[in-house]
């Protein structure tokens, strides 16, 4: 048992439902007790979805406990098949069905006999996988199912498209700014003269999955979702994939160069260097921004980054490499894929934190006391409590992170959006401090920032008065450094002398 107040990634079935509800005309039936269909509320609220979420529950109640689901699941599948004529029904297990150990595969086989559409059991175990892993697996499962079906029927299309083309894999419902990223990526492909063959799963029809092999290559913009499918397509059809997230100026260029290499290897002859150069220097504002005096002022400012693998890694690189910001700590909650994250960010930050415990990241932020945080909604609230601005860069997210306006994180417009986000986070913080400095007599008590930090040292009157003269935004740091110094030297009281000695010793 684990005492938990908050979780970063949801349970496995949420991942499966995100995939099922991303496809067009696919219906998910959860084998779950009353109340577990909360996914519908989230989709309807967060995405302001106009249509009914194609998810229903086959309710597990007391009777099911006593004598098993029997005909209930099969009846519900067949009924939904008749009501909505979906192409595919995905039977979705939950934590409850994981321990009931009913033979859901058998229900699926039986339902398949009466249903006109296809029926499938999502192969995810609640106790082994989280939302992100389950989404990746479910997408792979559906892709594989339809490609094998097409192969069996001899319906697989022959050969490749005439012009270079791509499948964009991993855009999904309830994904962080996924819709905007998708538009931006399509635009980028158009600029590069690459046709978009299929986008999956968002808005795709399962009937089109058989066309996937026609593309020259696959692009998986997100580390968490789509990689399994891309790897499968590589193994089965020899399709190369590009898994460099085009987020930030340098990474976008790297992604485009990789695409160039992949399509030239298949007989095309393209050179994107001029395009990259033109975009970088004149079209996107991010490169110019990092050169401007605004960004100069951010040099060496401390930041903490936390999120999923894709966004936390990309942000860390952008902050450190493109803006000269000092990333003290970069972290991810994708524990299952921690090695990849460490490899990506270790040269761009001082510390790496792999944890899904929000207390651990909260304490780290309190200890480091950065000028800005880039994290999830949870870090935003830590920031509120500590008075540190926060830019939200990854799920879990609230409704305000599903903006109606165009806000991609990927591609060249994405670099502009990220520059704004970073700059606004830091300036808001500066403004705050300037107000504090010039906003009249500064007689405020010293506030020890920190969720876990506690002070056991006393300050004498003069030292206290001196400390109060120090501008608010560095005061916490000065206080802590002085106390650390005093503790190390064994001083029990902090006087003016100790303060200055500390300043000389640690440059507080």
């Amino acid at each position, binding site marked *: 048992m684990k005492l938990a107040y908050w979780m970063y990634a949801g349970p496995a079935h949420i991942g499966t439902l995100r995939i099922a509800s991303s496809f067009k005309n696919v219906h998910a039936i959860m084998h779950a007790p009353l109340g577990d269909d909360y996914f519908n509320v989230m989709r309807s609220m967060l995405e302001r979805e*106009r249509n009914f979420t194609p998810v229903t529950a086959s309710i597990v109640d007391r009777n099911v406990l006593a004598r098993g689901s029997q005909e209930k699941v099969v009846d519900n599948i067949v009924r939904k098949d008749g009501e909505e004529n979906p192409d595919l029904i995905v039977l979705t297990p939950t934590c409850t069905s994981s321990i009931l150990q009913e033979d859901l595969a058998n229900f699926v086989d039986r339902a398949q006999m009466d249903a006109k559409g296809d029926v499938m059991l999502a192969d995810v175990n609640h106790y082994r996988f989280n939302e992100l892993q389950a989404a990746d697996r479910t997408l792979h499962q559906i892709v594989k199912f339809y490609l094998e079906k097409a192969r069996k029927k001899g319906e697989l299309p022959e050969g490749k498209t005439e012009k270079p083309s791509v499948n964009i894999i991993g855009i999904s419902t309830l994904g962080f700014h996924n819709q905007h990223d998708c538009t931006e990526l399509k635009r980028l492909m158009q600029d590069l003269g690459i046709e978009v063959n299929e986008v999956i799963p968002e808005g795709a029809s399962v009937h089109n999955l058989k066309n996937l092999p026609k593309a020259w290559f696959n692009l998986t913009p997100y580390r968490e979702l789509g990689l399994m499918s891309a790897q499968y397509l590589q193994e089965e059809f020899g399709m190369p994939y590009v898994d460099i997230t085009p987020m930030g100026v340098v990474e976008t260029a790297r992604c485009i160069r990789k695409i160039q290499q992949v399509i030239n290897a298949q007989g095309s002859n393209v050179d994107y260097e001029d395009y990259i150069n033109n975009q970088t220097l004149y079209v996107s504002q991010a490169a110019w921004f990092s050169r401007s005096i605004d960004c100069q002022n951010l040099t060496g400012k401390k930041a903490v980054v936390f999120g999923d693998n894709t966004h936390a890694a990309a942000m860390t690189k952008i902050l450190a490499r493109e803006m000269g910001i000092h990333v003290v700590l970069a972290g991810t909650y994708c524990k299952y894929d921690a090695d990849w994250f460490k490899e990506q960010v270790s040269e761009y930050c001082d510390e790496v934190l792999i944890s899904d415990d929000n207390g651990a990241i909260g304490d780290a932020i309190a200890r480091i006391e950065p000028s800005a945080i880039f994290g999830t909604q949870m870090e935003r609230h830590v920031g509120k409590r500590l008075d540190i601005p926060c830019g939200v860069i990854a799920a879990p997210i609230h409704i305000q992170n599903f903006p109606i306006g165009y806000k991609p994180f990927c591609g060249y417009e994405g670099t502009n959006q990220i520059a704004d986000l970073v700059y606004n986070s830091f300036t808001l913080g500066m403004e705050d401090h300037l107000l504090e400095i010039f906003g009249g007599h500064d007689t405020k008590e010293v506030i020890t920032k920190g969720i876990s930090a506690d002070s056991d040292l006393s300050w004498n009157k003069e030292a206290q008065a001196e400390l109060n003269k120090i501008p608010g935004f560095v005061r916490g740091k000065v206080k802590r450094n002085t106390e650390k110094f005093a503790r190390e030297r064994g001083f029990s009281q902090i006087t003016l002398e100790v303060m200055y000695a500390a300043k000389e010793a640690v440059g507080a």
Partner: protein
Amino acid sequence: MTALQEPTALQFECETGNYHTFCPISCVAWLYQKIEDSFFLVIGTKTCGYFLQNAMGVMIFAEPRYAMAELEEGDISAQLNDYEELKRLCVQIKRDRNPSVIVWIGTCTTEIIKMDLEGLAPKLEAEIGIPIVTARANGLDYAFTQGEDTVLAAMAHKCPQTAKAEGEKEERNAIHKLLNFGRKKEDIKQEESEYADHPPLVMFGSLPDPVVTNLTLELKKQGIKIAGWLPSKRYTELPVIDEGYYVSGVNPFLSRTATTLMRRRKCKLIGSPFPIGPDGTRAWIEKICSVFNIEPQGLEEREAQIWESLEEYLQLIRGKSVFFMGDNLLEVSLARFLIRCGMTCPEIGIPYMDKRYQQAELAFLEKTCQEMGVPLPKIVEKPDNYNQIQRIYQLKPDLVITGMAHANPLEARGINTKWSVEFTFAQIHGFTNARDILELATRPLRRNNNLKELGWEKLVKEQAKV
């Protein structure tokens, strides 16, 4: 609809139970706020945690006094010892938060793996020295607000009896004494004399404190004294309940608590309509008065006065129809009030219908329909949301009261909706709060009045019929 003759009695139907509602563990969201010295430990899985985290929204960041005891694979396969695990977590909670009670919320998973929470609690309680209340608020058996019912039914067992309480009474009343400090004994005696001589009356149902005060004063005007309230602001102030006490429920979803109070604590239940809407509040007070042989004073004028003040809202809804999809068990009382307001109601969906506990409310609904000259609604227990939506397309009601899963899709199809969960969190009890119910119910109508010139009602393309 093909009903040829108007039904003369309420019709009850039962559908498939495929409907959307909140999981009953959501009751921790309001109960931890109500019972200030409590800590709620939900023993379940990531699924439960994910629901609470998202359903409670921003509350989650305010250091709530609730947490998940998240079960791992080792717990499910009994490789880990339940007792030791729970002890470890509860000791940690005691150390960090020092609550006066820990409430264990059993979930679907603890039911299925048959974790004996009721058996473990007394042992652990003795070992760590904090009372532990066990409530099985799971989605296998209950819907949404019924979660509160299971918690209160469990708490009813913990209410002290006079005989036993004498010793600790001094201590328990310390706070009351503090409040009375400086007042002369005569004043207190004087206050006592304002009440009629009636047997002790204990209310049950969790309400926000302002509503508690409001209802208490309403009864005081009739000379009726509320001896205690289950739950009270603090666990340490749970009311004394003795054999022969009278009890009255303020919410329609408290049937288990009522049963427990009657059967286990030997109380007498006053069956009345619930104090929702001015009509309901008056009927509630009148019923309590009649049980105590008190002639109610000035109620008719009071009710009339409230109705008068509501006129501007009533104009908006008179003659309009309302459809309840059903998810929180407040439906019958709300429908009864809205019918009195001049609306019609073809269907009342409800998760669970306790015809004994809601008897007076149902009779009042029937009477209201007859007096207003409108057809009796069909009451659909365990509704099927898919079928209901087909009926909504057919009936085209002016207002659908529904959960969040259906609200946006219905709005996009030009159907006005009100999110039902708001009725459980808003203050809707008593004379004073009738306005708040109508404020909620008329909001979509008022909003759409403001937008009606725009011609933007249907915002989805017609789907081709397959």
